[in-house]
């Protein structure tokens, strides 16, 4: 059996006082499309850097195709899109794509790579004249130009408009459909849902969930219950309720749950007085963040 495409073995990464990645172990097999999902600062980018070998683990080991990620043989089989990286502004799009292609043993042609990123009309433009969205596409072209087996995308759609994001995800989907491995980080659950068959939820440097998007979605609370109460409420009041998060601030209680009816019935049974009761759909972002914090606390 061949080695997994990407492997982290009990990897930790410490920056001074901050433990950015805390004993993560995971393996990504060839052909998988995996989203690493988590709030900002969860350790997603650091995890990717460790997989790529651009950062050294404080402890544990990272492997690409069973090799040291710094090995040029391993690097020759990956393509990477990073947050906040720069490219020379005075090269034309087709020039820099051709240049990056020359780093790889079996690259795509320049026109193939440019077409995959939807940049045909800008092929002759200087990089410095591209818009923000076009620049993201250029990064995609640079990531795929080496015809990689594994594509790493760190927050690829940040700063894109809705239409740009839709097209972009479609292009990534087409790439993945060829049996390639894709590892992307995102803080949008819908993006992960749309692309990935496996979602790894990371929070505070740890993997807190690793399963299918459907499974993750079912664990993310969909409804928000809020009410006022005159009586002080502590954690015991919420014991045994199927809520994924609870907050009490200035007499107002906020609960996130997938089963609002059951939760309310139980609260009534416990004789908790409520005024200004509201039940509403939680927005995904909020629900997701609540879930990560809840899981990390247990």
């Amino acid at each position: 059996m061949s080695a997994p495409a990407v492997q982290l073995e009990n990897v930790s990464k410490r920056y001074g006082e901050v433990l950015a990645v805390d004993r993560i172990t995971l393996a990504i097999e060839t052909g998988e499309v995996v989203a690493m999902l988590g709030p900002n600062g969860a350790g997603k980018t650091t995890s990717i850097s460790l997989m790529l070998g651009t950062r050294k683990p404080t402890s544990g080991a990272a492997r690409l195709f069973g090799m040291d990620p710094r090995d040029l043989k391993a690097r020759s089989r990956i393509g990477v899109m990073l947050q906040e990286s720069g490219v020379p502004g005075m090269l034309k799009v087709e020039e820099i794509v051709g240049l990056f292609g020359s780093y790889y043993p079996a690259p795509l042609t320049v026109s193939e790579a440019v077409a995959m990123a939807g940049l045909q009309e800008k092929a002759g433009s200087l990089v410095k004249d591209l818009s923000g969205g076009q620049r993201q596409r250029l990064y995609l072209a640079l990531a795929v130009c080496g015809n990689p087996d594994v594509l790493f995308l760190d927050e690829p759609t940040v700063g894109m408009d809705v239409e740009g994001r839709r097209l972009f995800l479609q292009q990534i989907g087409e790439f993945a459909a060829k049996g390639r491995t894709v590892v992307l980080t995102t803080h949008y659950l819908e993006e992960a849902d749309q692309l990935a068959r496996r979602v790894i939820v990371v929070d505070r440097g740890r993997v807190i969930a690793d399963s299918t998007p459907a499974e993750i979605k079912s664990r993310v609370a969909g409804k928000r219950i809020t009410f006022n109460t005159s009586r002080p409420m502590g954690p015991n009041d919420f014991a045994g309720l199927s809520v994924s998060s609870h907050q009490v601030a200035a007499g107002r209680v906020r609960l996130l749950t997938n089963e609002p009816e059951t939760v309310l019935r139980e609260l009534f049974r416990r004789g908790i007085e409520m005024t200004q009761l509201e039940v509403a759909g939680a927005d995904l972002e909020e629900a997701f963040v609540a879930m990560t914090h809840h899981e990390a606390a247990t």
Partner: protein
Amino acid sequence: MRSATAPFLPMLAKQSWAEFIKLFRVPAFSTTSIVLPAMFYAFIGLGQANQLMGPPGSVTFGEYFLASMAMYGVANVMVLGFGISVANERGQKQDLLMQSTPLPPIVFFIAKTISALAIAFMALVVLSLLAYSAGGAHLTSSQWLTLFLRSMLCSIPFVGLGFGLGYIAGPNSAPAVTNLIYLPTAFASGLFFPLNLLPPFLQNIAPYLPLYRGAQLVWDSVGAPITGGSITTDWLWMGGYTIAFFVLAIWAYRRDQGRKFN
């Protein structure tokens, strides 16, 4: 079965070409690098180009100053233009993406060196054309060859210095830092005014400066008298500076990479 990594030479060729056009397309770089030495030559050298520097038959000022500006020009490309461009690229985090590609760092450095040498060569050509056509610099073909060869060789230690400064200085401070270092040493090495016109303390420092040693070699190539010992001494000094500046460059590069990628 495809090979596991890309072939070295095509990669180097493409990278060198890309580095060259990157530099060449920035007017602030290409004009100051290529035109500036010729401009100084026009301002300072042309007016008195035919004056002899010694007894009849000796080198003319036009020829002498051609050699001065040749040394000034090649080192100028390496320290100012090149050093600043390295600092700028770091400032734009271009190294972040390069780090995750299979481009071996050595290819990147060789390519950058080749591109800077190409620009330095162009600066020499422009300067020489001016000196030949307007400055009355009529060297023998072997003198021209020696002038070009020595100027280019003497630019190599400054490649190391350019890299070093580029990795030490930030993108904002790089222009100031490199100018502060380069311009005074160019004066102190006698590239603009003959050394005997400079204050004595500068005359005492001069023999320890790399531009001074390089200048001796280039002056010698056009038949101008030299000071500070034989040219063997100058070659040894230049060799020493090459090692010292490249050690500095490697140290600065590792320090920078260690900060970002550890």
